[in-house]
């Protein structure tokens, strides 16, 4: 039985430390919607998503009211659309727009799954599909897209890497009037996971059940507040405290996930243990690292502190949930984290340091704005580096980068809401085009041959 102290602690976490359930994401299989024509398929997709998820917003609000814990986002992920539209890839945008419409009907903020999985090779229909992404993201509001370009098992598909550099640029250019927001709704992955509840990279894998509920917990503020209570403790104690705090946060997520899946008549999928920041003051992963003893995030020691944080969160979370999955790591999106924004403005954190940080945490170079005149091949090279880290280390890595049109270092982009704002960060000016234009595949590492 809980004590009065426990009750007051939970309430303080919500009131002062931004404890929340970051997202309830319903994964829906679209495989049953495939028809001969794109028009008919799009109609089926719209009907199915609206029917399956019709109660997601109400259920989340009810649970939030009953447990007294805010549930910030209600979202849907679907089977990668490239598979649904394989028969008519040039008409895939019809399905994208049907999905966007269903998100609006449901009243959810994002729907993910305008995706293609091309980690080994790009099929013809996937090539056509990927080329539709910029136009679709420019003409929809709530749809998110992702492309998996590599994996530890298959190596890296460099044709896809090259193409994605161009696609990021096109996405930003087609939405130049909104600081290139199209690119903020697109992620390129290495080792993408099929049960990720977080946007923009969520999609519903084909190995999943028909309808699934995945939950993403959060609570950087709670972890930071706990650490403030032990300012002089050694790092063993710091790790212990983070573990215990992550346990409590994840238990709240587990409870909500189980109850939500029951009420929504869906399979309980996973709880994602990621620490996800928001632009709100006190809800920052960067500030946890600073609390651990680095003056400004990006300074020497940042990677070590992040490694400790990421591992301790997992250890505490795994014990608290019956099924853990998704990305489960500390997120370091620049524009969505007030500590990161400040460090970037000061020039304390650079793309190179962020890349180093992604070696020890998920998920990658996230929400980073770079100059609009960055060549596509340079963006591809950034993605290639990030994919290599994921491939060699058997972990998920990703790139969500915004080549902000007409902006240069010193300027800022602002997307508002959860997507936040970001100063334009410099990239290396040396040319990487020869490497990218070679094409082919980066072979899978030797340690992938485990059979």
């Amino acid at each position, binding site marked *: 039985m809980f004590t*009065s102290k*426990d*009750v007051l602690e939970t309430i303080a976490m919500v009131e002062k430390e931004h404890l929340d359930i970051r997202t309830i994401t319903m994964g829906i299989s679209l495989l049953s919607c495939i028809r001969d024509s794109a028009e008919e398929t799009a109609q089926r997709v719209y009907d199915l998503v609206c029917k399956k998820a019709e109660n997601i917003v109400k259920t989340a609000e009810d649970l*939030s009211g009953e447990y007294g814990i805010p549930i910030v986002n209600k979202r849907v992920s679907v089977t990668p659309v490239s598979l649904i539209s394989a028969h008519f890839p040039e008409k895939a945008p019809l399905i994208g727009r049907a999905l966007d419409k269903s998100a609006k009907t449901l009243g959810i903020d994002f729907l993910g799954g305008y995706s293609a999985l091309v980690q080994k090779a790009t099929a013809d229909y996937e090539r056509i599909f990927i080329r539709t992404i910029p136009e679709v993201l420019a003409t929809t509001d709530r749809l998110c897209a992702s492309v998996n370009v590599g994996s530890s098992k298959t190596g890296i598909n460099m044709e896809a890497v090259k193409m994605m550099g161009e696609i990021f640029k096109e996405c930003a250019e087609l939405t130049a009037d909104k600081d290139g927001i199209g690119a903020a709704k697109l992620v390129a992955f290495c080792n993408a996971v099929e049960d990720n509840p977080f946007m923009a990279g969520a999609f519903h894998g084909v190995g999943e059940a028909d309808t699934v509920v995945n939950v993403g917990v959060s609570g950087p503020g709670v972890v930071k507040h706990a650490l403030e209570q032990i300012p002089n403790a050694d790092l063993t104690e710091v790790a212990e405290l983070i573990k215990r705090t992550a346990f409590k946060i994840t*238990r709240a997520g587990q409870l909500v996930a189980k109850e939500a899946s029951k009420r929504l008549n869906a399979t309980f999928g996973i709880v994602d243990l990621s620490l996800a920041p928001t632009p709100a003051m006190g809800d920052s992963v960067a500030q946890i690292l600073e609390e651990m003893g680095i003056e400004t995030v990006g300074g020497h020691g940042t990677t070590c502190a992040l490694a400790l944080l990421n591992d301790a969160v997992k250890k505490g979370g795994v*014990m608290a949930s019956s099924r853990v999955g998704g990305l489960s790591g500390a997120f370091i999106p620049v524009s969505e984290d007030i500590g990161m924004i400040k460090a970037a403005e000061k020039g304390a954190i650079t793309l190179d340091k962020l890349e180093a940080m992604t070696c020890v945490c998920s998920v990658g170079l996230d929400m980073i704005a770079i100059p609009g005149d960055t060549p596509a091949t340079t963006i591809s090279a950034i993605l290639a580096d990030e994919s290599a880290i994921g491939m060699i280390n058997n972990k998920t890595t990703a790139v969500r980068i915004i080549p902000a049109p007409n902006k240069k270092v010193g300027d800022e982009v602002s997307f508002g809401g959860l997507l936040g704002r970001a100063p334009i960060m410099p990239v290396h000016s040396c040319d990487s085009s020869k490497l990218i234009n070679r094409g082919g595949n980066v072979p899978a590492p030797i340690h992938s041959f485990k059979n």
Partner: protein
Amino acid sequence: MRAVVTVTGKDKKGIIAKVSAFLSEKGANIEDISQTVLGEYFAMIMIVDISAIQEELSTIAKECAELGKQIGMSIYMQHEDIFNAMHSV
């Protein structure tokens, strides 16, 4: 079904009376009550049985928060499961 009602804020007269009157009017049965006053800070935690209540818990929780605003306190009503989940292994 049991819920936990937490009332916190600056100590003043009649808090318990007002909160328990509201709960009894709704049909909730108070099973346990504990209260501390630290300086001017008041904290009361009640365990209430809400099985007999007709309205949904999320609705009553909203009304509790409203009552809190009226009397200048912060009032939460939450399903007990959240505390059992977070604070026991």
